């Protein structure tokens, strides 16, 4: 059972990583334009000849 001494910190660390990612995404306006982002990924920037 000593393994949980490592596993719990690892689990918490991964969770914290996720939280950090979430905080970053909120603070860098990632949720401001949900509709636009959905369309932008489909936008092909190559111009036809």
């Amino acid at each position, binding site marked *: *059972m000593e393994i*949980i001494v490592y596993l*719990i910190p690892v*689990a*918490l660390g991964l*969770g*914290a990583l*996720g*939280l950090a990612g*979430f*905080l970053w995404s*909120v603070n860098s306006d990632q*949720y*401001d*334009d*949900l*509709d*636009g982002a*959905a*369309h*932008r990924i*489909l*936008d092909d*920037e190559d111009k036809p000849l």
Partner: protein
Amino acid sequence: MTEAALSGSAGCPSGLEPPSQSVGGDYSPFVQNKGALKSLTLSVRGAKCGGCLSKIENAVGGVPGVEHVRMNLSNGKLNVAWQGATSANTIVDRVTSLGYGVSAYSEDGSEASAKREERALLISMGVAAFALANIMLLSVSVWGGHGEMGSDTRMALYAISGLIALPVLVFSGRHFFQSAWSALKHGHANMDVPISLALTLAFGVSVWETLAAGDHAYFDASVMLLFFLLIGRFLDARLRRQAHAAAHDLAALQNRSVNRLASDDSVESVRADEVRRGDTILLAAGERAVIDIKIAAGTSTVDESLVTGESLPRLIQTGETLYAGTVNLDQPITGEALGSTSDSLLADIAQMLEAGEQKRARYRQIADKAVALYVPFVNTTAAITLIAWLLLGAGVRDAIMVAVATLIITCPCALALAAPVAQVVASGRLFRKGIYLRSGDALERFAEIDHLVFDKTGTLTLGIPTLVSSHGAELEKAASLARASRHPLSRALVETVGAGPVASEIKEMPGLGVEGVIDGKAYRLGSAEWVGVSAVQASDGPTLWFAGDDQEAIQFRFRDQLQSDAADVFADLKQDGLGLEILSGDTEQAVKAVADQIGVSTWHAQVSPQDKVDRLRDLAAADKKVLMVGDGLNDAGALAMAHASLAPGGAMDVSQSASDAVYAGGLSSIVTVLNTARRTKRVMLQNFGLAAAYNMIAVPIAVTGNVTPLIAAIAMSASSLIVTLNALRMNWGRS
């Protein structure tokens, strides 16, 4: 070739939105300078799909000097930053040439703070979710290892849970603690008081249990409670902000620039909010006044339909006051800006608005009533449980544990979600139909409506006259005079005839008409006396007379046409058994004609703004729940006074801000609003019923001491889920 021609069509390529018109004017006062970089934020209307995004961004990106362009499809904001001599109007022209409507956007203070609040709640929610997931991980181990797990291991897992929970409760729970504290300071209790109590006690008891090596710790339950409550709080905040932003956007359509005369008589273009009292303003022909002015020089005719409801233009002279919303029709005039002096119409209306707001603040929402019943119920139940267990001989520790478990399990997750979830779903539906709610609680008031009061001009009618009499060749000649005039009747003539030649030697006489020469012969188009007709028979609408050297005087008759869907909408409303009434500032004949067409028997003509307010007060005294629908400045007081109110998208911004919702579509939006509101109210009542039923089951289990942290976790999440799913049901049913 323009960009629009290149892409084949104007406006949204998906066809979701027709091309829209732009508000003209000068956009340079809205540019912000950051060093050499200039930036401008525009509100773009009509952009609905990914094609619009790339069309607009590519077109604006192609303007020389543009360094950054980003379009937000969700709220229609276009951010442009550029360097060099390019003018803001070039950028605006580029977007309008694509077929999109544009207006300048300036963020107001309340919007920025609402956005900060929403973001703070989102972050708190994220932090609570992180804590919940990790504590659950540990809790599931404890539940799963029951009987096998050693007490030391369990204590270690509880200790870790507590260490995660403490900072999270302080950080994410601050929204509730602060609100509860400020309510208690003022000597009353709100929903946040029992919430704060439950959070604090659950945590406190769990710490105690952990230290005493007890069986049950409620760290998971307290954080879960926090998470669900934050979801409700976040949805509520987002709904309020979106509603506010949508209304602000519509108001921005009128966010125009003003031509101010400097002391050396040069004209500068400034934002309306930069104008100070006493400034000299130049109002060009065709321009709408955005602030009240006192005319210093010039004579002209003005269209005051938005201010007074009167559909025909009026002649104005030096010394008279022009109110914001008035359109100057034919001659440029200069005037002195009045700002908000106490004797202005706007100040009177502001007072009426205030009276209405106070009345509305007293409205008690269903959720408020539920909380008023709920708070004493929960606290009393917990207290009785504690005392009863002590009296029955239980230890102090056991009695407290049971009481706290009761408090936790009855805590209002479902109650906190019941109203906001239903309101969010409903306002989303309305939003997609072009109806912008300004507050969530308005839905409850809409649901109670039994009497509707309408303004006429611009609400029931289009607000612009149309030619209704038929003519032959004279019409062509009259149109060539009319083409030189901005008078609404002239515009209506030209609308019927179309483009064509303009007569020569045109002279426009304010308040009288137009005269000009066609093929060497002189003609006049205007009022009866002016063209030389003495005996005039009465007409139920505005008229124009046309006469000339070889022409007998003939009469053109006009009507302010009804909105196209008016007949159907009124048939529907009558079927619903709702009281219908028209209150208009227009003449008796005009109002009667409209009332007859739509079959409304109660109508009042030539009523002043104060009369409208008085009438609404009478109706309220007769215990009627009135829905006021109106667009003009003269309706603003009545809109604020009514039980609920609606304004069309073209309304004055004062009227829009006095209303509970603004609709962009036709009159059928009224039926949609009423139906959706009634349905939302039903769903909300169901939700409160479900929350109550949940408590009926949970409370007996809790007070008898049978609740474990596992049961608490399952019960809380199940009740929240059920309430949410019930609200989402509105999206599945008939549309």
